[in-house]
């Protein structure tokens, strides 16, 4: 019974929205507490694009989710019920996205993901109103797996924290690597000491290391790795080698290969514009999250040129067409509303005093996601 009622309620809300000329966008992201740096970059990237467009008929409401799922839900409720937003975006973390996205799309709102894109939402749980502008969570890990294969590594040691994104990570790596492993370890989420894992790596006879340890965990691991005397090629997804994190890791990260669908040296005109505008406005180099935020805003703006969100079908079609200049160059949506894009391998380098990345190879061309077939939208 309730689904029908809900949809009816949603269409009423949608009708009410047409009365207003203005489009409202709710940006929910992490601005305080641990992980705030990611949310701040997301917000800054998004607002940079909005400023450049200079449209005064679009209002962006920014709120801090404190990285707490219940707070994110509360803010989403507020934005939907009280601010009457048409579009939601901005969440960094998969667990927060899982808390907000299904309920928001069930109420007929559009959700554009600037980062988190968990497997459920790409497969069985896909939704016509949910678009991931960033990637599907597994993509960057898959790139590392493909790279490991192409480099001819035969015994990588792989590790990730023991939580859903960690499991997806190792699965993504294995999907494109496909060979034998020296070891597979799940660490504790939030773990700060990796001495035990490093000892295991040394004893395992591995020829390379793949790890996914977001945030402070990655910093800890890299510092301890650099001091362990182990000298193996290291791979990972871009998250642990992002602009903000690299400065805290220092030399320990130099030379690490990481899978990414964006880099500041990516030779695309839109990217050059973005990087210089971001540096000029905020006085620092943009990160991956800033790039996703920027692309998301531009995608949304391109669709708003075609249709009002109130006209859901037309707006959806305009989003799906993805007629915007992505900083990533080639960009289109697959049937499950997740991107088809090239994924690269970057290497950590030092430019003057700043640690940053440069692209060294293309790992996978035109990658979609592993869960397309599970999605009922075809």
């Amino acid at each position: 019974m309730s689904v029908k009622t809900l949809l009816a309620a949603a269409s009423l809300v949608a009708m009410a929205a047409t009365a207003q000329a203005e489009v409202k966008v709710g940006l929910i992201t992490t601005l305080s507490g641990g992980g705030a740096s990611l949310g701040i970059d997301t917000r800054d990237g998004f607002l940079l694009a909005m400023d450049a467009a200079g449209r005064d008929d679009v209002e962006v409401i920014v709120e801090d989710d404190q990285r707490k799922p219940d707070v994110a839900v509360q803010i989403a409720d507020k934005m939907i019920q009280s601010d009457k937003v048409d579009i939601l975006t901005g969440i960094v973390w998969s667990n927060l996205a899982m808390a907000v996205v299904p309920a928001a799309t069930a109420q007929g709102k559009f959700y554009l993901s600037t980062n988190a894109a968990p497997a459920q939402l790409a497969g069985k749980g896909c939704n016509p109103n949910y678009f991931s502008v960033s990637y599907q969570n597994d993509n960057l890990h898959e790139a590392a797996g493909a790279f490991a294969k192409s480099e001819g590594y035969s015994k990588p040691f792989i590790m990730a924290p023991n939580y859903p994104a960690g499991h997806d990570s190792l699965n993504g790596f294995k999907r494109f690597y496909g060979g034998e492993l020296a070891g597979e370890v799940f660490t504790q989420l939030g773990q700060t000491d990796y001495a035990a894992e490093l000892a295991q790596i040394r004893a395992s006879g591995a020829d390379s290391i793949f790890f996914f340890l977001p945030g402070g965990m990655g910093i800890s691991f890299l510092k301890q790795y650099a001091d362990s005397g182990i000298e193996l090629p290291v791979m990972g997804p871009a998250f642990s080698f992002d602009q903000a994190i690299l400065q805290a890791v220092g030399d320990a990260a130099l030379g690490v290969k990481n899978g990414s669908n964006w880099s500041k040296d990516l030779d695309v005109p839109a990217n050059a514009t973005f990087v210089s505008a971001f540096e000029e406005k905020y006085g620092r180099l943009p990160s991956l999250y800033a790039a996703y935020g920027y692309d998301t805003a531009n995608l949304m703006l391109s669709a708003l040129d075609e249709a009002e969100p109130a006209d859901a079908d037309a707006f959806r079609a305009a989003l799906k067409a993805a007629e915007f200049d992505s900083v990533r160059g080639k960009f289109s949506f697959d049937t499950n509303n997740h991107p088809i894009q090239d994924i690269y391998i970057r290497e950590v380098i030092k430019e003057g005093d700043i640690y940053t990345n440069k692209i060294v190879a293309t790992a996978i061309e035109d990658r979609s996601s592993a869960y397309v077939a599970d999605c009922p939208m075809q």
Partner: protein
Amino acid sequence: MSPILLAEQVLNGLQSGVMLFLMAAGLTLIFGVMGLINLAHGSLYMVGAFAAATVAGLTGSFLLALVAALAAAAAAGALVELLVIRRLYAKDHLDQVLATFALILIFSEGTRWLFGSFPLYLDIPEALSGTVTLPGGIAYPAYRLALIGVGVAVALGLWWLNARTRLGIRIRAGENDREMIAALGVDIGKLYTLVFALGAALAGLAGALVGAIQSVQVGMGEPVLILAFVVIVIGGIGSIKGALIGALLVGLTDTLGGVLLPELFKLFTDPASAAASGSAFASMAIYILMAAVLIWRPTGLFGART
């Protein structure tokens, strides 16, 4: 698993135990003397790490960074004691919990306000980088060996302080009878500030030492704080010896549990799910240890019997 690898893991367990001891010793000292439960002890750990990272960034000297960490944490501790904590001694544990919980919020957000949300950089000193080869062919990071050394030195120093110095006598007297020590003509207010600053300095030292091989960021103190609680519950509140034994037990259980449980599960299931479920149970190992100790000895291994 080879004996050499096992030996290395035992060493790792000892090293993490020794660092936990620095935290737990301060907590248990403060509780023993002043009867205060301090949730904000983890914040002092963070203060130490941030001070060290800042000074290391400015001067490039790790030694100066350590000195700064000790000084900053001790000063923050003394300041907090003078402004807030001393008003809590006469209050019940509930008020102490709430007030020190409030201090966590102030310290965490205040630090973020001053330093921003991005993690800071702090590296180990050049002289201690790289590994040393131990008997049996274990290549072990020199810095971690140094950490074990520092921990042992602090343990010995605390023992010496407690058993051989005037301050130690006063501390022990304070644990037994507060009125008695006031009657002896000791300025109890000063003693309390001193003890609190000492505990804070130990936490700050731990933060700086560990910060060099981990991530220096806001919120780094709370997970360590909770582990330190487990340590002193196991060791017995108020007992430095208990804190040492408890810290080593927790360090070893945590490290070896994380390594051995997934191996154990591999006997029953495929490697990927063994790694996952083994790790899930390993995360509970120290708490199960704590529960077992409580069933056996409700006041911890070296706690006062009631």
